């Protein structure tokens, strides 16, 4: 018999009054996967994770965690599961270590076992030297790392992280991503929620993109890349008129007038390369070539905010993948 998936949601619905925060969401995370839930703020990611942790109840649908459900198994559903929703919170009047000690006691660990485990997880997140300071004096990034430490204390099989890099400075983001990647590389199943395409692309194998409570895309990062439109660049040349004429001779190149008086170039990378070389050979100097929207970012906007009027260049938009119907594998 095949092992139960780490997370298996079917037709999950959560309403807050007139607002449907999660609308018939299907999502499946296999054991060992590094899975991303991507979406803009308000897409329903955090509501979904709160249902996973039993903090709120779904109005309809089913959510299994390692084959267990809240309705049938109660808090035992969370055996082997750890993580945090939004930013992790602790008691500010206690030290980081004391917070972890109390949480370890909550999990049933004896003092000696807890002390060893706490030393280990504090080292993992690089907080050992500040462990005796009160959490009230911690920076946002330190609290995020303490949240990861508190999660690792439970020795989870599934680690759930909601916007782990949110509010961190660039160095903190780099460190947090590196930590998550190392944890994922060790075989842990990771469910990562984010509104940052780069973060999910860098860390995850598979992704569900949510928009307005619904699944807008489900599949692998590679499948997402395959559906992404060509990259959009802003191009400025020494002779825009001739550049436009030359573009007409290059199939696969879309060159239009850009609102700021330059040109908007959209083409696959190799086709764009050939076109730029041709410009040089024709004596047309390239004065500026700026990437406006990365392909995945462009696709993300199309999936989550089709009305968005920006450099994503809707005119050149690729067709939106009809992944919703087949979202549940």
């Amino acid at each position, binding site marked *: 018999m095949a092992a139960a998936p780490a997370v298996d949601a079917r037709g999950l619905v959560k309403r*807050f009054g007139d607002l449907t925060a999660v609308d018939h969401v299907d999502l499946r995370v296999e*054991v060992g996967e590094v899975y991303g839930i991507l979406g803009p703020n308000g897409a329903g990611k955090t509501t979904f994770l*709160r249902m996973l*942790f*039993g*903090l*709120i*109840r779904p109005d309809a649908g089913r959510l299994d965690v390692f084959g267990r459900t809240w309705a049938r198994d*109660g*808090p*035992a559903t*969370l*055996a*082997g*599961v*750890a*993580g*945090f*929703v*939004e930013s*992790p*919170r*602790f*008691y*500010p*009047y*206690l030290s980081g270590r*004391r917070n972890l000690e*109390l*949480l*370890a*006691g*909550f*999990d*049933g*660990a*004896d003092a000696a*076992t807890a002390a060893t485990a706490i030393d*280990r997880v504090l*080292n*993992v*997140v*690089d907080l050992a030297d500040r462990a005796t300071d009160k959490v009230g004096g911690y920076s946002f990034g330190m609290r995020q*790392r303490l949240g990861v430490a*508190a999660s*690792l*204390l*439970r*020795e*989870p*099989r599934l680690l759930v992280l909601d916007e782990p890099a949110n509010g961190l400075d660039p160095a903190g983001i780099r*460190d947090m991503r*590196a*930590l998550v990647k*190392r*944890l994922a590389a*060790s*075989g*842990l199943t990771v469910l990562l929620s984010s509104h940052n395409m780069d973060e999910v692309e860098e860390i995850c194998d598979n992704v569900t993109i949510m928009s307005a409570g619904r699944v807008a895309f489900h599949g692998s990062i590679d499948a997402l890349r395959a559906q992404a439109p060509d990259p959009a660049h802003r191009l400025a040349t020494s002779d825009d008129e001739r550049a436009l004429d030359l573009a007409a001779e290059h199939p696969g190149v879309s060159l239009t007038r850009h609102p700021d008086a330059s040109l908007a170039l959209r083409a696959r990378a190799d086709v764009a390369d050939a076109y730029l070389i041709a410009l040089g050979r024709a004596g047309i100097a390239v004065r500026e070539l700026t990437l406006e929207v990365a392909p995945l970012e462009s696709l993300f906007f199309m999936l989550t905010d089709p009305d968005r009027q920006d450099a994503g260049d809707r005119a050149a938009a690729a067709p939106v993948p009809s992944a919703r119907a087949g979202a549940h594998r």
Partner: protein
Amino acid sequence: MTTTAAPNAAPNAASAAAPPGRARIRTVYRWEIAKLTAQMRTRATLTVCLVAPFLFVVLLDQQSQVPKDTLFGRWVHASGFATPLFLLGFATQWVFPLLTSIVAGDIFAGEDQYGTWKTILTRAHSRTQIFWGKTLAAGSFAVLTVTVLALSSLAAGVLLVGHQPLEGLSGTLLPSGRAAGLVLAAWATALIPLLGFTALAVMLSVVTCNSAAGIVGPVVIGLIMQLYSFLNGSDAVRHLLLATPFDAWHGLLRDHPYYGPLWQGALVSAGYLAICLAVAHTVLRRRDITGG
């Protein structure tokens, strides 16, 4: 950051070791006691309970007048046993509701304030276990503060005034040993409505998710009840008020003690306890934790 090998497919050791049922309530209880011990507010409250009676006796000793209008006030210079009874009469006005709600009114709402519901509710304990662990901790703190205040009042009276016999409410002198026993019994009767106020504070804490409402609410409600009892209102309503049982100890200080108000007060307090805790438990179990 440096990482060690992360745990993988091994069963969750912590969860596997987690004890079931009542043992989990004990875990929550110990966790709450540890948190309370670390808080300045609870330490300050206990310190005040310990020191205030001594300060009161010293201040009273410097005055020639005694508070004659108050029960046992006229005897505070005559017998050290009058001091704890005088303070008991005063404390029932608003001090007891405040003492218990300092912790009980905050013990649930504090999790909302710090956004820590999600921290503790994601550790495989049920809301019912957390509810009872916290409620027991709040009740323990209430009993502890009143016990400290009672013993400190008795010690202040006996050490600073003396252990002379005490004149009871029927006018006869009670020997020291009997007076000491009655003083402790009188304070013990206050524990019953005190726990009713604890439950009221717990309910307000859960329902409002607001520490200020949880702490101030029971004090205001207690004062309104006191106010009603001073009015010429219906006796039936007065007997149903949670403040009324605080006066039940008067019957113990008579030559022929009567216990009717004690039993009645115990029933009323039990009613408040049951209703408030049932409401609080139901609200906590059904609540969506969306904040934090």
